[in-house]
């Protein structure tokens, strides 16, 4: 007997999930607009975007709950565009968890194994192992209505993982949990993914969650991928103003790009004067004319003493102070016509917290600027 179909070896060169020119409309509304994407084997991948950007629809097309109007969905090197969900090597953790209310925890987790007709002992031991993996030991007989939100989440995870999927799909799995539990689950999901080596695809609207957990992120707006990259790339080198303001806080300063000078980008701003930036400081192909400069709040400093110096500095009046305990966020007036900008400072021992109206020295460097 040829074993080629039973024991498929995953080729690292073949992407685990490959989407080619995917389009999907509901009635007259096109929600995914010709999208290409490759997700590698063993990757923790996030689809990040605001609600209505098409990220959930995309996930549902990978799962097999929706069929694209055009385009090709391939999973593990096999074309599966028109396969039903029960024929795909993917499993999903639903936003609502979708725990079967008439079954208890053990029965929920064993649901997908029933088809495999395993001996009873083996089935039970596999379910118990899985419950242990997701930290639910001892809840085998617990009825599903007696579970907390966090426990339902783990049951949903166990129920999907016991199927040994090639790809685990997570549809906003943490959005219903409170902050503490959410942070804990973020680390646990990451740990699970590393231990099991399964490809995880996470849909989320929470940029922080995506940054913490992912190997790569696709930022989606309006049915298309606006930017694809590692968390650090996305955060530090956003390609558009839209991406920049969706990921974290970004200050915008208007300027005029005058062209290259000594291999540097020459930008004139009214707030910060003339600045010269490296060509790597823009991800887009800028043309001379009006541009926007982006500066993260933590990339500027309030200079607390006269000893402290910076590459460049200016004086500014504080218009708002938000004290977070570990951090203080200052809003300060810009010298030019730009909006007030936000600066975050870590609170350290003995460090003064300024008040509204104080005039302070703000230090900054050209390295931290990105041209959009």
């Amino acid at each position, binding site marked *: 007997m040829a074993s080629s179909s039973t024991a498929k070896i995953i080729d690292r060169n073949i992407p685990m999930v490959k989407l080619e020119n995917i389009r999907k409309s509901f009635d007259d509304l096109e929600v995914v607009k010709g999208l290409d994407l490759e997700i590698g084997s063993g990757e923790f991948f996030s689809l990040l975007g605001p609600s209505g950007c098409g990220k959930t629809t995309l996930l549902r097309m990978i799962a097999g709950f929706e069929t694209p109007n055009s385009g090709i969905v391939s999973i593990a090197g096999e074309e599966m565009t028109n396969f039903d969900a029960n024929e795909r090597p993917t499993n999903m953790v639903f936003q609502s968890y979708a725990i079967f*209310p008439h079954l208890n925890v053990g029965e929920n987790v064993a649901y997908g194994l029933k088809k495999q007709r395993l001996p009873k002992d083996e089935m039970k031991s596999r379910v118990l192992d899985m419950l242990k993996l997701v930290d639910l030991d001892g809840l085998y007989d617990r009825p599903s*209505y007696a579970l907390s939100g966090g426990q339902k989440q783990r049951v949903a995870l166990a*129920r999907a993982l016991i199927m040994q999927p090639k790809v685990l799909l997570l549809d906003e799995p943490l959005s219903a949990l409170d902050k503490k539990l959410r942070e804990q689950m973020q680390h646990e999901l990451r740990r699970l993914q590393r231990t099991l080596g399964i490809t995880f695809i996470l849909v989320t609207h929470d940029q922080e969650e995506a940054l913490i957990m992912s190997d790569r992120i696709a930022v989606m707006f309006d049915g298309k991928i606006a930017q694809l990259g590692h968390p650090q790339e996305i955060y530090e080198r956003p390609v558009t103003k839209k991406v920049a303001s969706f990921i974290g806080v970004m200050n915008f300063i208007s300027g005029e790009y005058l062209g290259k000078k000594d291999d540097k980008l020459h930008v004139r701003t009214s707030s910060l004067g003339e600045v010269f930036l490296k060509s790597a400081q823009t991800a887009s192909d800028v043309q001379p004319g009006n541009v926007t400069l982006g500066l993260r709040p933590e990339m500027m400093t309030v200079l607390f003493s006269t000893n402290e110096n910076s590459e460049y500095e200016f004086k500014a009046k504080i218009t708002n102070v938000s004290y977070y305990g570990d951090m203080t966020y200052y809003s300060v007036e810009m010298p030019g016509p730009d909006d007030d900008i936000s600066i975050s400072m870590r609170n350290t021992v003995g460090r003064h917290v300024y008040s509204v109206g104080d005039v302070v020295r703000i230090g900054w460097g050209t390295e931290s600027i990105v041209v959009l």
Partner: protein
Amino acid sequence: MKKNSRPLLIYLFIYLGFLYAPVVLLPLFAFNDSAIIAFPLSGFTTDWFSWLMEDESLFRALKNSVLIAVTASFISTIFGVLTARAMARHRFLGKQSMFGLIMAPLFLPEIIVGVSILIVLMQLGLALSLWTVIAGHVLLATPFSVSILTTAFNNLDRSLEEASLDLGENRIGTFFRVILPLVTPGLISSLLIGFTISLDEFVIAFFLTGTDPTLPVYIWSLLRFPSKLPVVMALGFILLVASLVLLSIFEFYRRRSESLASGKENSGIK
């Protein structure tokens, strides 16, 4: 008790009295030792119940009624499942007007429905039988089945079905392992309400019965003999108790259907 709530309380008692006083008369006269239905009561007896037990044509009528009620409720529940599933999961042209037409028999006068069906049957040259009564009762019970089951199917979280498919189960398996268990309380309450509607329905049964009367039609025929009136009272009492039991079971399952299908468990189920 607050002073200003007294008028409301009086209203409540009048209201309940108006509703239930006639019903209370049933057991009173069912056990009264006199052939005349009038006060004062003359004494306690269970004779009327013994009479009932010996009336063979009554048992035939009861058997007919139960047969019709079981069949009609079964058919209307099947129609209900099909309609409810379509309403909850599919979108098609004329969906709302279709739903309206299915629910319409709720508001049509039964006598009109009865006469119309009778005319159609005559034109077709079909003989009146238990089946013609069943057809009429299915028409009446279907709107109730549809509305109960639409609630059950609408409350069913769609992602439960998707989760089942996602875990490798096919559509038929999903129906039996997930959908059916979750709508079973709805099915039971639909069967029960169909059964009770059919069991005491008179107008349509009166028009469409052939030589085999249903129980209400038989009771009506008894009313021509004043001496049989206490027997009718006794029979009425038994039917009342049976209906109350059925309705309580119905209510239990209806509530369970709502809570189970939406994934929330309420009190009363362990």
